């Protein structure tokens, strides 16, 4: 009792063990450093589990991600993994899409059953992305030396590639080593922004597959660029939440940050050592696990038949 491991968080309105918060931050930071995803879809449920109100958990996590993605972006920037041009274009699309998404949610809430749609979107998106990435990387890991996959990869996207190439304003993205119309990242960013707003997350785990499969960027550049983009999204979310809902608990965020910045640094290094396909398959497994958890929460009888509103 004499030495207190607890800190009282005035915004969350609860006391928490700060060692536990450091550990949570560390684990999620490690994952976000490896995969370039914000980790919001993992951190928020974990925080709720230890007694932080859902709205405070989500908003404080955004604040934490600002710090985590700063150090992550910096680490990846040093390794030459950030495509700023692509990142900024995606961001422009993402911000516009996010704003539209928030309006979409408002309309759906008014019509009722928005929560149902949100959860179904989650399960379908996660299931689709996870399964596709998993199959794709498995194929690549198995048959890497053979010519067959190269041919398959070359023939399969022809229709999509032709469409993409027909778009105006083609630009060279040097870091990623690809050539696209600037409309493509803006458009894709817009779509991800809508989805992210509906699902209430940073959108990193949708953006990563979009960059890999639709923008054909190399995996390491994808991770760095995704972190760069998450940084700006979360700055926006933190300020908006602090201003309108007063749900940002800065002390909580700071402790999560201490844990996660350390984790993110290690994560970036592990990410560098792993091969692109290995990274993809791990991320696929992670995405599928979250999908299964979500699906179970839809199917199993809940322990308590009442819930607070405002969480994911």
């Amino acid at each position: 009792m004499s030495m207190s491991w607890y800190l009282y968080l005035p915004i969350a309105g609860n006391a928490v063990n700060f060692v536990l918060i450091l550990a949570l931050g560390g684990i999620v930071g490690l994952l976000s450093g490896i995969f370039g995803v914000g980790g919001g879809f993992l951190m928020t449920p974990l925080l709720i589990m230890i007694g932080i109100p859902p709205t405070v958990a989500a908003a404080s996590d955004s604040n934490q991600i600002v710090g985590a993605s700063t150090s992550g972006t910096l680490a990846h920037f040093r390794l030459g993994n950030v495509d700023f041009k692509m990142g900024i274009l995606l961001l422009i699309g993402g911000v516009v899409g996010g704003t539209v998404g928030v309006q979409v949610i408002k309309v759906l809430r008014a019509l009722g059953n928005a929560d149902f749609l949100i959860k179904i979107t989650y399960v379908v998106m996660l299931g689709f992305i996870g399964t596709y990435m998993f199959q794709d990387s498995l194929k690549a890991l198995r048959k890497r030396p053979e010519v067959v996959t190269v041919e398959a990869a070359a023939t399969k996207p022809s229709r999509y590639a032709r469409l993409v190439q027909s778009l105006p304003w083609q630009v060279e993205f040097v870091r990623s080593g690809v050539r696209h119309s600037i409309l493509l990242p803006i458009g894709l960013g817009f779509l991800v922004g809508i989805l992210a707003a509906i699902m209430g997350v940073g959108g990193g785990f949708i953006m990563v597959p979009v960059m890999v499969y639709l923008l054909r960027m190399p995996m390491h550049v994808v991770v760095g660029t995704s972190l760069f983009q998450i940084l700006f999204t979360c700055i926006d979310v933190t300020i908006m939440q602090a201003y309108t809902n007063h749900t940002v608990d800065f002390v909580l965020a700071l402790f999560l940050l201490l844990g996660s910045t350390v984790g993110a640094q290690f994560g970036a290094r592990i990410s560098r050592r792993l091969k692109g396909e290995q990274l993809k398959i791990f991320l696929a497994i992670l995405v599928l696990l979250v999908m299964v958890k979500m699906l179970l929460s839809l199917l199993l009888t809940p322990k308590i038949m009442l819930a607070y509103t405002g969480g994911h």
Partner: protein
Amino acid sequence: MKKMLRSLEVLWIALLIFFLSSLAVQASVLKVSHVSPDHIDIGAFYHGIRLKVTGFVPADSDIVIRFVGVRKDVHLKRKGKVLGLLWMNVDPVTFEMAPNACIVEASSKYGLKMLGLKSLESDIEIETEASVDRERLFLEFLKLKKSEKLYSERVGSVRFEEVDETKKGFSVDLVVPARLTPGKYTLQIFAIRDGQVVDRVEQVIPVKLVGFPAFLASMAFNHGGWYGVLAVVIAIFAGLAMGFIFGGKGGAH
């Protein structure tokens, strides 16, 4: 005639004395001699506190002590099955004027039955458009609050000590949860006998933020925008600092 009036007067006075004396006995049945602490300060290291209450009750009565929070409407969503398969938040439910916290300590099971958490049902109005069993909704509400440790009830933590034939001393350590928000809380002490409250005493326990939490909360609630900007700036600097520390040491190129 005069004599009769005189005797009536005497009767009145006798009745009055009897009534007043019985009142005096009533008032002395429950006496709270000590509540410590009598206010709660939430500082940076607050994580729950023991509220010590001592006093006297009549020898033949039981006691119930409640620590009741601020009453406010609580807006929740009811979960239900959609398409006969998937669990969803279906419709909104409001629990009107439900206390944000309620900790009950009783000297007997029967005391809990009278004044425990379930007794709150009578003064919490449940507002919902759905045609559902309100009693079951209320039980789910208790479950939710208990899972947050904001509601709790238990028997057996009250200690009695014999004083004389008419009264006994009591003492109890009421465990105030870590998850506490500032406001005016009320300590309620009831002496009960034969299914009746024979006496009750109430004392307000103010709970307030002090020190760093107070500073932070006033920043967050009164200057939300600046607080957000500050949170972002500090997060970025912390991130950069960590990046440089690690970058310098590792050199992972």
